[in-house]
């Protein structure tokens, strides 16, 4: 019997939503939540002996301690395989799944597996270290995710050869492998070129890694003359969210005038963010967007000026393409308005 330990968050365990995202790690015997379907798909010779559960916020705010605690819980069951998720596009959950898988692999020396959406930040962080099955961006993709996870889990547990990312459905790890092909390289290259010229699809044998890094800009030289703008992905908006920015997968951003605003209060501002407990930001939005402190610093002459407008969106499952497009557009406005630097806050 192959023993498996499974990891899920507070939401998939049914403990609760964002109001329970701060729960500490706990372990339960047997399957919980999506473990049920996973168990069925894994077949009779594999058994999920325990499920570890942790709140997404607790994990991400205490990555080292939480990981150590979870490793201790897992090791008690001496599993042969560890599976985490699927996390879909839940960022904190994806980071948790990836962090724990990596730690289990290194410390317990057993095969590990997780699953998430390709834009989950956990994917970029851990795809080189782990097999991450690619899933849809929401839990509606569970039915497709489970069989793909189970297939790969079986192969990993039985130490079978793992095929290419495309064949097995995991996110490319950037590993190059020598293989024998029936046709020689020159012929394959010409075939590929012909397909390309005809406008047909073809698959490169040597994908180039994408490095999208931007070099830091020079610092501000005189802060007392600088105009500073505030931007947030924490969804701070005037009360009642006039632009109806979505609580997740935001399709827009808002631009808000704070001329004459010295403090964000419960009566005047709130958060539209649906990816964490909104209570604290709704009571005092300065906890996400520090307008009060920047006004003080403006008055004291520490900074030249706080820019008249702030820009806000909800960074919860929002696609990379949308975020890029938002920032591209409003940064042109910031430049035109003579802003010298930006403070961007995230929840």
């Amino acid at each position: 019997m192959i023993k498996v330990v499974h990891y899920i968050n507070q939401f998939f365990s049914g403990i609760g939503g964002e109001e329970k995202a701060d729960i500490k790690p706990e372990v339960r015997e047997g399957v919980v939540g999506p473990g049920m379907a996973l168990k069925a798909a894994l077949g009779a010779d594999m058994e999920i002996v325990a499920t570890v559960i942790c709140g997404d916020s607790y994990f991400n705010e205490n990555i080292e301690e939480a990981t150590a605690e979870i490793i201790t819980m897992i090791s008690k069951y001496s599993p042969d395989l560890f599976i985490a998720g699927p996390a879909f596009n839940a960022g904190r959950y994806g980071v948790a799944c990836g962090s724990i898988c990596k730690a289990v692999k290194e410390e317990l020396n057993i095969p590990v597996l997780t699953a998430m959406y390709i834009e989950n930040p956990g994917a970029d962080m851990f795809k080189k270290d782990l097999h991450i099955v690619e899933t849809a961006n929401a839990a509606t993709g569970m039915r497709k995710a489970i069989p793909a996870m189970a297939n790969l889990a079986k192969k990993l547990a039985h130490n079978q050869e793992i095929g290419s990312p495309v064949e097995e459905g995991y996110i490319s790890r950037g590993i190059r492998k020598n293989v024998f092909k029936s046709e020689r390289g020159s012929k394959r290259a010409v075939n590929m070129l012909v397909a390309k010229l005809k406008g047909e699809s073809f698959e490169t044998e040597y994908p180039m890694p994408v490095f999208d890094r931007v070099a830091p800009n020079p610092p501000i030289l005189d802060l007392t003359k600088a105009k500073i703008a505030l931007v947030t992905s924490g969804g701070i908006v005037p009360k009642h969210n006039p632009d109806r920015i979505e609580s997740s997968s935001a399709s827009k951003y808002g631009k808000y005038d704070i001329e004459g605003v010295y403090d964000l209060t419960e009566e005047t501002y709130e958060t539209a963010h649906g990816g964490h407990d909104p209570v604290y930001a709704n009571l005092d939005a300065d906890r996400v967007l520090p307008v009060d402190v920047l006004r003080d610093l403006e008055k004291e002459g520490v900074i030249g000026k706080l820019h008249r407008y702030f820009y806000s969106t909800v960074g919860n499952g929002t696609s990379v393409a949308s975020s890029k497009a938002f920032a591209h557009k409003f940064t042109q406005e910031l430049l035109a308005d003579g802003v010298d630097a930006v403070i961007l806050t995230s929840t």
Partner: protein
Amino acid sequence: MVKEIERAGLPVVHICTVVPISLTVGANRIVPAIAIPHPLGNPALSYEDEKLLRRNIVLKALKALQTDVHEQTVFDK
């Protein structure tokens, strides 16, 4: 967003709680925050202490904006 702002030519500092995510996203100046639902606050403190905490994080962010960096830098001191 942080990368697009930088790409357009403005120095930018990212105040966030989960620093590994910010590093993955490609922020160059990073200031760690308090907690996910209240990055620049702590509801357990009095109003005055909480504002002082926030002021210190913002001052750290302003210091980051005045610091010449050549690679991703976490300002955690």
